[in-house]
């Protein structure tokens, strides 16, 4: 459904050019759960911004991003507006802090429904309640303000918001940072469940390889804007090829190595 071909993104800051993404080619199959794993500065977030047409204006972009056959990079603003939320939707990094503090949860969701789905009034409110229930929250949450929710509840609400217009592809950028491990496991389980119940394809962006390995069916390891390696979690963990992947795996097995050596 998504075909990234030789994508390069260069930021030009005061004459200094940095290639944040450097020749990435990647296909995302319908219904897949892909983990994009990389350390700070590896280009993960730039790649996500490119998929949503959200790169700053003076960025140099080459290559193609074909979504259902059409190149996202050459879409007009209005075509892009039709794509966001309805086809590709984002759970942004730090989503828990992205709510407007003075607006009830329902207004956040209703606003998206008003603008992008043309649903208003009671229709929109009912839909907001349904969306919250879909992510395992009580519908009554819609009457609350963001600060009245726990971190895990806010993350679920952020996922409900991203699902408001029934997208086909969900991008989740570090969706579990600042959550404790038990809540983290619950959010990952929620994403896995939604993938099946809503027929979603999901791209999970994270710096945490073991986390991605738990839920994804395919992992893409990025390093300095390039794709170091991709494969199933099983392949990467048991038979990593690229030196960077080997390093990451070794770091994660640190305890075991120390005991052996």
């Amino acid at each position, binding site marked *: 459904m998504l075909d990234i071909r030789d994508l390069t993104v260069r930021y030009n800051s005061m004459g200094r050019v940095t290639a944040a993404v450097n020749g990435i080619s990647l296909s995302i199959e319908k219904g897949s759960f892909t983990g994009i794993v990389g350390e*700070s500065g590896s280009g993960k977030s730039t790649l996500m911004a490119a998929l949503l047409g959200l790169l700053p204006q003076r960025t140099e972009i080459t290559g193609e991003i074909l979504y259902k056959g059409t190149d996202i990079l050459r879409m007009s603003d209005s075509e892009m507006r039709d794509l966001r939320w309805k086809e590709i939707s984002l759970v942004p990094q730090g989503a828990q802090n992205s709510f407007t503090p003075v607006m009830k949860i329902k207004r956040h969701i209703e606003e998206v429904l008003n603008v992008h789905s043309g649903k208003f009034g009671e229709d929109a409110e009912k839909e907001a309640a349904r969306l919250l229930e879909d992510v395992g929250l009580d519908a009554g949450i819609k009457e609350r303000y963001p600060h009245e929710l726990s971190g895990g509840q806010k993350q679920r609400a952020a996922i409900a918001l991203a699902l408001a217009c029934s997208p086909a592809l969900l991008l989740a950028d570090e969706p579990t940072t600042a959550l404790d*491990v038990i809540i983290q496991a619950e959010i990952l389980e929620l994403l896995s469940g939604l993938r099946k119940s809503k027929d979603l394809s999901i791209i999970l962006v994270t710096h945490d390889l073991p986390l991605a390995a738990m839920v994804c069916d395919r992992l893409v390891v990025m390093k300095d804007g390039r794709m170091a390696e991709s494969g199933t979690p099983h392949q990467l963990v048991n038979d990593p090829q690229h030196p960077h992947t080997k390093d990451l795996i070794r*770091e994660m097995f640190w305890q075991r190595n120390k005991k052996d050596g």
Partner: protein
Amino acid sequence: MDKKILQAAGLTVSFRSKKGTVHKAVINISLSLAPGEKLALVGGSGSGKTTLLRALVGVVKPEEGNVALFGKDLSILAASDLAKVRQRCGYVQQDPYGAIPPGLSALEAVCEPAVIAGIERNKEKIRDRAEALLAELGLRGDRILRSRAVSLSGGQRQRVQIARALMLSPDILLCDEPTSMQDASTRGEVIDVLEKYAASGTAMIFVTHDLVLAGHAAERIMVMKEGRLCEEGSSEQILNFPEDPYTVKLISSIPSFEKLAR
């Protein structure tokens, strides 16, 4: 008094909201630490780990129970004596953003504890030690050493903070999530440094979700839930044979390759 570095008995810490409701963050916790002993505190958000750690160095006052550091009861210490006791404690805060003075460079921030303590007057020696500590933690080069906190990443700030906490070679180091902001490649360096100090006899308490850190660098693990002690035992025992249902859930929620590896 015996040789315990730290002794806490029956600690209960409460917070009162403006509306007058009382929230007990830590409930009846006792623990003690011998020189060189390493303890990990694990538990979900809101389980009271950080509050406990703060109570152990007297930053928050317990409602019940008492804490003795190096045999001195914190509740009856004069401020000047408390300052002396604290000089022997290193504390790594969870949030490295607020923990480094904004006006100082990374190097100056690490030198600062030694300058304030006045133990070493030779500025060059202080500088050399700070540079060596930062280098061990993977922070080298003029550009980084001269950077102020704002231009460092979260992971870099966390390492500056660890260097700061180690500057006075503390007898006890209390670390609140010391690897939470590290990438895989720098996390190993941080664990190595902490381990090195632990091996040299520094007692340590870690609050952490990093089970590699907990399991390897600590001999004992305390699991906390809603302010109470839920389970306690050797790292080996807690990680491999947890008994309490909450501990079982906590351990199994932590992402690990073990399930995938051949």
